[in-house]
């Protein structure tokens, strides 16, 4: 509980005033010689328990009345029943707003209610105005510096909802930096969030450091979480997983794969999917029986005339799929772009002829007939002349690169390109991404892969859920790895078969054996090698070509740079140009198209449990106020009236208890009644 006039609380010892008055009154007693002691003794013995209880009750009610008047005068604030942490008014309040799409959810039980974000903003404005905080700082994007605002009312115009997730640990780190650099006094950090797992990322190692850093701050820092964790299982999200042009009987049509999902598995639902491509719109119904339904390769005719991107161009364009409004409007639309499939160009640098041949064959065989694959075998010296923007993957079976080649490959990896290294016959001490080859080990008996990451990355199970036959591989010879890497597949005796280097934006993989029959059965058991290489090519191909489909906030900072060449084709017009990369929409720069959408994790309503949140703030002054979308009023309210009522009730109770009981008439002793006859 917080008080606007906490100094008045210094008078709380006055609660003992009734006791002191009682004791003084007791000291004021008179002494008297008394004859009728037998009646006094009887009176003291009668109803002693009730009398004592009544005295205690009267005393307690008097003390309660004093306490209530003092508390009322100190102007207490209610922060919800769960937030009874102590503390006075902070010098600085830092507001951290979760603007992720899930915060757009409205109260499912009320019509036209505000979203969680709007509710949180409104309640924050009212509460901070009530608290009359000294300095107010707003933090919405970890990439931007916290900025000070004059009054809480400014919050109403700030922090528009975005399509990107909120990196809560990073925002808290920014808040910490602000507190430390500005040497401000007592600070209250208001965190408005819906406790989504993907926003909070509780497994992040940053939490421990953040806790330690805040705990070491000399000033007092309190955390107030405004939690809007209520979810609506009936909310449906729509997502496009693929959109590719296709020629069918001379007609150009777009094959779109749409996934609609929700948290509950019933009831059965028929949803109209509305497709908008250019000026044309079409609708198709999709049956949602369980938690998820997929509309696979739905054909949409693109026509013969002018395409959306220009006259005669029907193979490139953008579109949007939408579903009717439900609890969360942020996941009812999905933008997509399409183009002719880019040529999936693979560069192979291989010293071993057998390996080179196998790798070329694997890379040159597309997984779909619409895809065009191209393989180029090079020596390291030729790399300087490569058009890297067209390359999806580099497969390297040679001594690790040196000199300028390293820089080229690092830039390629940073851009999103994929790199797969196979060990050379003569390993060197050279390293790439901090990882280097050590020595070959020849195994007397062929080894089999014991464990591998089947849930993600290159060795993940297939779309149908089947595992790759990795366990059937035989490894006769393997080369050791040194450096920071994440194992994806392991051999016995802690040996690694496939690893991914850490710290690179793109994928840099190291396979410790070659496709040569001398080393392994990767070539003869070709499924694993094919899946591994083609998946890497798929990833690399995503960043090449003229169109890209990306999650919000995943593009480089250059997207919303000051050159201003990117223009918005679709999406919210309220978005600031500096935040375009955070808002869902379609953007164009020259002949390049980018569709930005919310990440897939936003569609999964995984809420972090309260207990887990408490663990994240363990050791810090933390309290949680639970709210729900559409709540009216401030969660910080002045509640002095409640204490006045309590005081009145206490006084009334005290008066009732002090009322003389129904008086027992004194024995009538008038002169005419004193004779025996009168008594009789």
């Amino acid at each position, binding site marked *: 509980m917080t008080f606007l006039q906490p100094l008045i609380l210094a008078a709380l010892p006055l609660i003992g005033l009734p006791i002191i008055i009682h004791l003084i*009154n*007791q000291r*004021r*007693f*008179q*002494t*008297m*010689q*008394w*004859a*009728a*002691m*037998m*009646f*006094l*003794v*009887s*009176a*003291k013995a*009668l*109803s002693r328990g009730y*009398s004592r209880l009544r*005295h205690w009750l009267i005393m307690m009610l008097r003390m309660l009345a004093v306490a209530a008047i003092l508390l009322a005068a100190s102007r207490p604030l209610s922060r919800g029943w769960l937030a009874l942490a102590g503390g006075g008014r902070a010098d600085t309040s830092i507001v951290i707003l979760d603007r992720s799409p899930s915060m757009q959810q409205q109260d499912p039980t009320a019509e036209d209610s505000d979203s969680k974000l709007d509710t949180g903003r409104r309640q924050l404005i009212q509460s901070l105005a009530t608290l009359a905080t000294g300095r107010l700082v707003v933090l919405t994007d970890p990439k931007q510096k916290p900025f000070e605002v004059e009054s809480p009312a400014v919050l109403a115009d700030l922090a528009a909802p975005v399509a990107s997730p909120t990196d809560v640990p990073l925002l808290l780190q920014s808040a910490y930096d602000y507190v430390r650099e500005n040497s401000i006094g007592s600070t209250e950090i208001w965190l408005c969030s819906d406790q989504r797992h993907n926003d909070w990322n509780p497994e992040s190692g940053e939490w421990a450091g953040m806790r330690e850093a805040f705990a070491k701050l000399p000033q007092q820092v309190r955390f107030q979480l405004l939690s809007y964790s209520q979810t609506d299982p009936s909310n449906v999200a729509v997502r496009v997983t693929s959109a590719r042009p296709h020629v069918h009987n001379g007609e150009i049509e777009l094959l779109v794969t749409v996934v609609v999902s929700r948290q509950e598995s019933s009831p059965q639902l028929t949803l109209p999917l509305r497709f908008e491509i250019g000026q044309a719109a079409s609708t198709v119904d999709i049956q949602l029986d369980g938690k998820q339904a997929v509309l696979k390769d739905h054909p949409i005719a693109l026509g013969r005339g002018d395409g959306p991107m220009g006259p005669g161009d029907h193979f490139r364009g953008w579109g949007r799929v939408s579903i009717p409004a439900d609890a969360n409007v942020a996941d009812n639309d999905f933008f997509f772009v399409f183009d002719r499939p880019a040529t999936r160009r693979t560069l192979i640098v291989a010293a071993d002829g057998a390996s080179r041949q196998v790798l070329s064959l694997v890379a040159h065989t597309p997984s779909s007939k619409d895809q065009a694959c191209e393989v180029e075998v090079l020596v390291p010296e030729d790399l300087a002349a490569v058009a890297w923007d067209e390359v999806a993957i580099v497969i390297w079976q040679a001594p690790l690169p040196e000199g300028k080649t390293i820089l080229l490959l690092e830039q390629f990896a940073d851009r999103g390109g994929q790199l797969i290294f196979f060990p050379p016959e003569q390993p060197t001490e050279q390293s790439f991404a901090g990882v280097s080859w050590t020595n070959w080990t020849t195994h007397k008996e062929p080894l089999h892969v014991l464990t591998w990451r089947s849930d993600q990355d290159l060795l993940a199970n297939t779309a149908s859920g089947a595992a790759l036959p990795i366990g059937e591989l035989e490894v006769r010879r393997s080369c050791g790895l040194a450096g920071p890497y994440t194992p994806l597949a392991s051999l016995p005796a802690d040996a690694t078969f496939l690893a991914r280097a850490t710290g690179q934006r793109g994928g840099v993989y190291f396979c410790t054996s070659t496709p040569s029959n001398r080393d392994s059965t990767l070539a003869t058991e070709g499924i694993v090698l094919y899946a591994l290489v083609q998946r890497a090519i798929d990833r690399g191909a995503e960043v090449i070509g003229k169109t890209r489909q990306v999650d919000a906030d995943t593009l480089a900072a250059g997207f919303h740079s000051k050159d201003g060449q990117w223009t918005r084709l679709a999406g919210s017009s309220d978005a600031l140009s500096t935040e375009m990369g955070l808002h869902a929409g379609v953007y164009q720069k020259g002949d390049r198209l980018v569709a930005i959408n919310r990440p897939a994790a936003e569609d999964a309503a995984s809420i972090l449990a309260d207990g887990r949140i408490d663990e994240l703030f363990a050791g810090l002054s933390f309290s949680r106020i639970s709210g729900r979308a559409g709540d009216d009023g401030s969660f910080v309210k002045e509640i002095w009236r409640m204490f006045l009522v309590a005081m009145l009730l206490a006084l009334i109770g005290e008066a009732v208890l002090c009322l*003389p*009981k129904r*008086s*027992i*008439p*004194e*024995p009538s*002793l008038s*002169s005419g009644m*004193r*004779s*025996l*006859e009168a*008594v*009789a």
Partner: protein
Amino acid sequence: MLSDRQPRSFLEPQVLSRLAAVPLLARKAMIGGVSGRHTSPHRGSSVEFAEYRKYVPGDDLRRLDWRAFGRSDRYYIKEFEADTNLRCCLVLDTSGSMNFGSAGLTKIQYARRLCGTLGYLAGQQGDAVGISCVANGIVRSLPPRRSPAHLRMVLDILEEAEPQGETRLPEVLHELAETIRQRALVVIVSDLFVDPAALGSSFSHLRFRHHDIAVFHLLDPQEVAFNFSRPTRFLDMEGGSAIFADPSDIADRYHTALSGYLAAIKQVVLESGIDYQRAMTDESYEQVLARFLVGRAAGKGLR
């Protein structure tokens, strides 16, 4: 009669003269040594006819009713009532509680007036007057005698009586019941702060001994009202432990206890058939005595 001494503070001549008009009569037949104003259980020589009885040899022939012999040819003796004096035993409670008084007079002072006036009135009509000052025992005692000198001694004792000690009135009354010879009028003046049941037992004992019992129950107005405004430490006037209490808190229960006590006293009075007079110390003792004397005069004639 008392001219050789200075006036007693508890005797008022005007009151004595006014009350002298009403005789002090016993409600029961008394056995006195001399002729007096009270009925006797024996036949005597008064002018009041009592009954006829058959002559038996040895009877005084002067009391033979010759007219009856003439009418019936039988011998009858004509008998008359005997009038005698009474023995008035004053029992004065001199326990510590009798020293309490909030209305000007303490209970002991009030009791002195009652006892002194009654004793004087009894002496004036030729009755024997004695006194017993009692507390936790018989403190002082003077047997009933008729002489004026004896009455002076009684008054001296009254004057010198000092309230002290605790009350053991029932035990003392039992003792007096055994020690008072012959029938007597026993006048008890006390605040009766004892167990009513024990008190009833002692009254029954006195009645069994054919004594005529009169009780003056003295109460102070503050003992009844119990209207204090401040917490008070009550010191027991009879030496018991003190009690600290907030009178406003226990007044109701005090009154409950007092009512219960008075109801018990009333029951004892009804069962014992005693002459009970409750007197508040703020009330004129003359009125109390007048009510007492008139009430007894109405009951004269019982034998």
